[in-house]
């Protein structure tokens, strides 16, 4: 039997508890000083007998609510016994909760708060904005346009993506290797570069429309242009998702159906299609979110076709109506969240495709020429078109004046020198955001896959939430949340880095979770069992084994941050100008050739980053973007 504890034993046992309590208090105090401050303000001023008396009073500024939420968030994991026993784990979980609270939930929540505030600095709850909003024809029009565009764009890109994916995985068309790369090429370009090259080719002085076909009356600017650009940008995602499904589909099922007498079309309709339905829905929903969130393309090519994301920007930056802008952001974020929730629900259900083990998968079908060659032409056309888009950017950068003078020059490349400061800023911000987001993603992934504690589900949710939030909304939310004392972060690199890191965190998190699930959980247990602490286990076992996922996350976030415009345009300031913002301004105002040089440089940087990824991890860019 163990002997009764002496007094000193009891103190010794209590010491870890005291240390934890101490750290908790210090951490809370730190958060408090970050989000709140007490300032001394003038209360009244009176002059009696020539003596002026100024009464001062203390006033609390900042967000006591955020502090209260942080305190609650920190208290949550304290309820788990196994975390209380391990101070380092407890602290890590708490830091993650506080970080996600401050940098994800709070800024997004601010959109809703500001949207409901009265105008002219009146902080009380009011529906005034929404009354004002709905009294404007623009709002109704922009909402309707956004939803219709989203549905059209998502439907078309998913259908075309399905055809392309089917052709590339299950048929015997030639040149598959190169076509697989070409059809997803636009994944790695800044999204609005696609609309820019559309303008080069089909614009008012477009190479194809003006010079080749001599068309004068038709204009690319408007809904048709946006849909085409979005198709080109979104088809690759659908192709990747569906290629994954088609290549893991059990060939025996199709053979069985054929054996029972089903011909090609009936086969597709009765077997192939039902099997891929969940993946089709996923692709549709993700493309819907991507379409309604799109900011750069409509700004460049949308003409006077009004959409929510660009309008939210215009209201805030050009018309100085922040409340209306926030209200528009709310209208934008609701369908996006809805689509995201639906996608989450679908992906959590069991899919048909993965049920069978040891099946014959991804086997090639021999198609008759009547099916084969039309399918091949569609894929070939798409691949060639992508190549043409990229080619036009590089050619555009090399000529004097696109559309007028096609003689070669280095002037545009030299012109990039004026943006060297912006380039440096962007590289710095994207690199730091990449490492930060990648690291948080991996830590979070190992917490949510390996540990059981109160609030784990909430942590996972908050870590993934940003996937659904349009960049415009992130930008506006960050500006609202962090532009007042005491945490005046607007205009700093810090806010941009944090915004980029947390905006792309979902992909880092998901790729980390996928990688964690590949690792035998006994490895981490063996390390603990041999006496290594949790942090040591993470550093020596977990992290080295997740290295590939980490690097993929870092490079993904780096590329997405390098090419981000929708959030960057709100967050970059005179002191922290970013390359994409400068490029966007040149595209809108400068000469096409000048702008083409910017886009070309960005594409080269992305290619280099992807090359680095290949060298470090052996993964291709297709693997990188397959993470959804």
């Amino acid at each position, binding site marked *: 039997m163990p002997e009764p504890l002496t007094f000193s034993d009891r103190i010794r046992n209590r010491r870890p508890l005291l240390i934890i309590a101490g750290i908790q208090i210090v951490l809370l105090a730190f958060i408090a000083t970050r989000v709140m401050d007490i300032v001394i303000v003038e209360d009244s001023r009176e002059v009696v007998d020539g003596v002026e008396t100024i009464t001062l009073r203390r006033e609390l500024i900042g967000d006591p609510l955020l502090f209260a939420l942080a305190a609650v968030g920190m208290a949550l994991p304290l309820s788990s016994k196994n975390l209380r026993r391990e101070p380092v784990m407890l602290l890590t979980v708490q830091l993650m909760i506080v970080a996600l609270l401050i940098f994800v939930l709070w800024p997004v929540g601010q959109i809703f708060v500001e949207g409901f505030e009265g105008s002219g600095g009146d902080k009380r709850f009011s529906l005034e904005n929404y009354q004002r909003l709905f009294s404007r024809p623009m709002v109704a029009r922009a909402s309707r346009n956004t939803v219709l565009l989203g549905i059209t764009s998502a439907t078309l890109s998913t259908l075309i993506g399905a055809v392309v994916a089917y052709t590339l995985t299950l048929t015997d068309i030639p040149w598959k290797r190169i076509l697989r790369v070409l059809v997803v090429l636009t994944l790695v370009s800044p999204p609005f570069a696609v609309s820019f090259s559309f303008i080069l080719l089909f614009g008012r002085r477009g190479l194809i429309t003006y010079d080749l076909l001599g068309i004068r009356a038709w204009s690319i600017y408007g809904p048709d242009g946006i849909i085409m650009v979005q198709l080109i940008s979104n088809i690759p995602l659908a192709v990747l998702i569906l290629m994954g499904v088609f290549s893991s589909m059990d060939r025996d099922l199709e053979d069985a159906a054929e054996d029972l007498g089903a011909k090609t079309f009936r086969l597709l309709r009765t077997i192939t299609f039902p099997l891929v339905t969940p993946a089709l829905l996923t692709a549709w929903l993700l493309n819907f979110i991507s379409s309604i969130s799109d900011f750069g393309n409509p700004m460049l090519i949308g003409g006077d076709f009004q959409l929510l994301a660009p309008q939210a920007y215009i209201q805030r930056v050009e018309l100085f109506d922040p409340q209306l802008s926030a209200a528009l952001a709310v209208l934008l974020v609701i369908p996006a969240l809805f689509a995201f929730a639906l996608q989450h629900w679908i992906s959590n259900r069991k899919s048909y495709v993965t049920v069978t083990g040891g099946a014959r998968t991804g086997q090639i079908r021999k198609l008759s020429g009547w099916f084969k060659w039309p399918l091949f032409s569609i894929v070939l056309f798409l691949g060639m078109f992508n190549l043409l888009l990229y080619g036009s950017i590089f050619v555009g950068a090399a000529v004097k004046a696109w559309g007028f003078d096609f003689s070669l020059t280095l002037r545009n490349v030299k012109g990039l020198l004026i943006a060297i400061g912006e380039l440096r800023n962007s590289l710095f911000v994207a690199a730091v955001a990449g490492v930060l987001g990648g690291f948080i993603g991996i830590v979070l992934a190992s917490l949510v896959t390996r540990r059981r504690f109160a609030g784990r589900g909430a942590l996972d949710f908050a870590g993934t939430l940003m996937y659904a939030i349009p960049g415009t909304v992130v930008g506006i939310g960050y500006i609202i949340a962090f532009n007042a004392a005491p945490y005046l972060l607007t205009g700093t690199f810090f806010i941009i880095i944090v915004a980029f890191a947390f905006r792309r965190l979902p992909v880092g998190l998901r790729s980390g979770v996928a990688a964690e699930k590949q690792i035998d959980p006994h490895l981490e247990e063996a390390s603990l*069992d041999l006496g290594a602490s949790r942090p040591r286990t993470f550093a020596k076992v977990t992290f080295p084994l997740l290295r590939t996922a980490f690097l993929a996350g870092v490079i993904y976030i780096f590329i997405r941050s390098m090419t981000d415009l929708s959030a960057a345009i709100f967050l970059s300031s005179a002191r922290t100008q970013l390359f994409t913002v400068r490029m966007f301004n040149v595209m809108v105002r400068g000469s096409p050739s000048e702008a083409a040089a910017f886009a070309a440089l960005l594409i080269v940087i992305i290619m280099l980053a992807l090359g680095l990824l290949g060298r470090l991890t052996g993964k291709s860019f297709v693997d990188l973007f397959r993470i959804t």
Partner: protein
Amino acid sequence: MASEANFATASIRLENLSKQFKEILAVDDVTLEVEPGTLVCLLGPSGCGKTTTLRMIAGFEDPTSGKVFIGDEDVTEMPPYARPSAMVFQSYALFPHMSVYENVAYGLKARRTPRSEIRTKVREALDLIELEGQDDKSPSQLSGGQQQRVALARALVIRPKVLLFDEPLSNLDAQLRVRMRGELRDVQRRLGITSVYVTHDQEEAFSIADVVAIMNQGRLTQLGSPLDLYRRPADRFVAEFVGLSNVLPAELVGSNDKGADIRVLGQMIHSRLAPTDPSASISVVLRPEAIRIVSGKDSGIPARVRALAYIGPIARYTVAVEKDGTELIIDLSNPSSDEFYEEGTSVQIQLPKEVPALLS
């Protein structure tokens, strides 16, 4: 490992240990004492709670209630890295990004052992498992048996007070399994280290353990030496689990302090132990090798051969009793040509005259 004598070992004591996973009570009020130096096998079908029990000893699962003691120390609240136990995993859990040497040195490095001491100890451990000179290989270059030995060396090198084995041999092929369990047993005996060994393989458990603890549906059903369990199973589950058994209903004819007389399929059998509750319905366990097939007429119970299989040196018959169709399994060892009964043949069977105990 040169100084095997001063290997400090300790007892393990589980007190009313329970573990609830959502709706499932995985471990139900298990109390168990493992004497220093002995090897206890937790034996049971999958899902019986044996692995969960082991993981609570290692500290990977928190008990819902109850306590775990290693020696006199209550380790219930201790994280795994602070416990004086070391585990050998079913998947070996060798770190794939480290060499054999680094794997074995891992626990010593975590303890901040001086580098020169680490080198000596790792060398000693690799010698012990006969893997000297393989330091720089990566685990994936080793065979299954070698990986198994590295996992054992990695656990032993930190001088744990108790060793825990989680189905350590189930990833090996049948022959290697038999050889490795002999090696494991040797090392455990030589070091005299208290061990808990989880397996679902009855033969493995019986060949390696000092004491076998049978678990079923989270509960500890019976505890005893392998022979005890085979001779006197406490209930039908144990009887069937520790070996192929015929469990038959019996009719109690009379009982006294010297035992009991029962009637089974019309034949009288004497039990050396009387049932505790004479009014309850009783049954008897008849081992397949205890039943005989006899050739002479009217000398036994008429039955008909249903199926026959040769399993190594044993002929296993399935017969149905003519009277009520009760199916029995009978093993005949050394089947010779005159003891051969084809399917469909009518035979006479004879039950044993005496059994050690009854099930109630």
